[in-house]
């Protein structure tokens, strides 16, 4: 089980780094996040990464669909799905392996933003290291949910552009849902707030690691991975 997942993972990683797409998206991500972080860093004059933590989830909305759009849609358009699914590898292993590869690429990109963290270590005062680390952990969890949603978007179609747009919409929904709570009847607000990504990320970036947040991230990611697997299995019955 694990070894097959790893084989899919490795193939997917080599596919990322064999093409310029991974490098380009990484550079774009780092440029945008660095610009938004540094441009106000010295003006605000505070020793934290709150700026970074608030801009990264917004960049995710574009960045993650770009990374995940090819995962399954490309296998379809190039007909390799038939080859892949007739190897003795289960659909779950395919989905999880691909998702892990996308997540690793995001994690690797995120690792480069640690430059800002290190800068802060040198010039900052009164650092709350715990909050910084849990903030990063939150970003990683958010990436896990979004890449799973992106995998799902990619599983729905054989066209990468369509996959991008579908994933974008799903992720955008996670982002926007708590922005219009004001218009929603009272009994719904708690539920919608729980769905919202920002609500959980907010806790994490303040240094609060609550089991409710962890359960949210894990179950949302698992939900999308399960859906993707089902979609993959549906090819048999179309």
């Amino acid at each position: 089980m694990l070894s097959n997942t790893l084989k899919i993972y490795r193939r997917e990683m080599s596919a990322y780094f064999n093409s310029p797409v991974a490098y380009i998206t990484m550079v774009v991500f780092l440029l945008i996040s660095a610009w938004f972080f540094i441009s106000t860093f010295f003006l605000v004059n505070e020793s934290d990464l709150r700026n970074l933590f608030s801009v990264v989830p917004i960049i995710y909305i574009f960045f993650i669909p770009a990374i995940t759009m090819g995962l399954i849609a490309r296998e379809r358009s190039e007909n390799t799905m038939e080859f892949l699914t007739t190897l003795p590898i289960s659909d779950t292993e395919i989905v999880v392996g691909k998702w892990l590869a996308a997540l690793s690429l995001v994690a690797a990109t995120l690792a480069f933003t640690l430059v800002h963290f290190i800068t802060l270590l040198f010039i900052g005062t009164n650092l709350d290291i715990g909050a910084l680390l849990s903030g990063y952990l939150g970003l990683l969890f958010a990436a896990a949910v979004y890449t799973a949603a992106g995998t799902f978007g990619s599983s729905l179609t054989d066209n990468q552009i369509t996959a991008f747009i579908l994933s974008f919409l799903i992720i955008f929904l996670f982002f926007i849902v708590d922005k219009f709570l004001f218009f929603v009847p009272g009994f719904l607000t708690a539920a919608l707030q729980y769905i919202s990504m920002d609500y959980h990320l907010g806790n994490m970036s303040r240094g609060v690691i609550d089991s409710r947040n962890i359960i949210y991230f894990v179950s949302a990611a698992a939900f999308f991975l399960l859906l993707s697997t089902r979609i993959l299995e549906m090819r048999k019955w179309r």
Partner: protein
Amino acid sequence: MIRVENLSKDYGRFRALNGISFDVRDGEILGFLGPNGAGKSTTLKIMTTYLAPTEGNVHVDDLNVLDHAMDVKNRIGYLPELNPLYLEMNVFDFLRFVAGARGFEGKNFRNRLSEVIELCGLKGVMHKDIRELSKGYKQRVGLAQAIFHDPDILILDEPTTGLDPNQIVEIRQLIKNLGKAKTVIISSHILQEIQATAHRMIIINKGSIVANGTIDELMADFKGRTRIQLELKNAAEESIRRITSISDVLSLEELSARNGSTSVALEFPNSVDLRQPIFEYAVSEKWTLLEMSRHKASLEDVFRNLTVEGVQHAV
């Protein structure tokens, strides 16, 4: 052994396969022949667990393909239609990925790899990207991935499509070599393809099996027939249809109609000579007989007869 029982497959409202049944015996090379869209690929996709049947069963060595998908996948080597490959990988990495999925690691992998390179003639291209290879070499890579785990059963869907004549000969030879110790199912819409490689053929048309037997058996069925081609003028369609009322006419096929002249082909057993009755019939119907020619049936005719529309007047 592979047993296909009453297999049907619907794509939405379109019935691609209509209750076909056949067996594939161990060690034989079975040709699966039919025009495009006849249901060949659908059958093979069900055998390889890619699709599930709407009705019916496929058993590979007594394992149901739905319930024992993993076991079946382990026994089968499959070259899908259009030979899909990861074009951005080089041949070595690609085969290492396939081998890994098939459970070959370390020394096992290296030993088998050198065998497969030898068998498929891949020496010298192992470190090239697959996209840079010629079609013939891509096909070799496709075969290499299919045989890497030395499966008992090899399923090849249109393995020579798009190759030039020299490459076709090479790939056929390769398939024949591989087929010496394996059960091979090879599909094609080209008769010569099957004739050159297979022991037995199944002809499929519109989702149903129309013939099943060795090449000699199929020929024998049709060799017993004489085919007469007529070119007629002043012949009304219904009067042409009535020609089947002459006893012993086995089939009537309308070939073409232009400028008031109609071409038709008739078949009757070799045991009788109907040329005179046909001539007399033409006279009685006041047809102008422009041409009458006799042909011996070939395997091409067998295939055409079984799969072309408009041959349905068979009596």
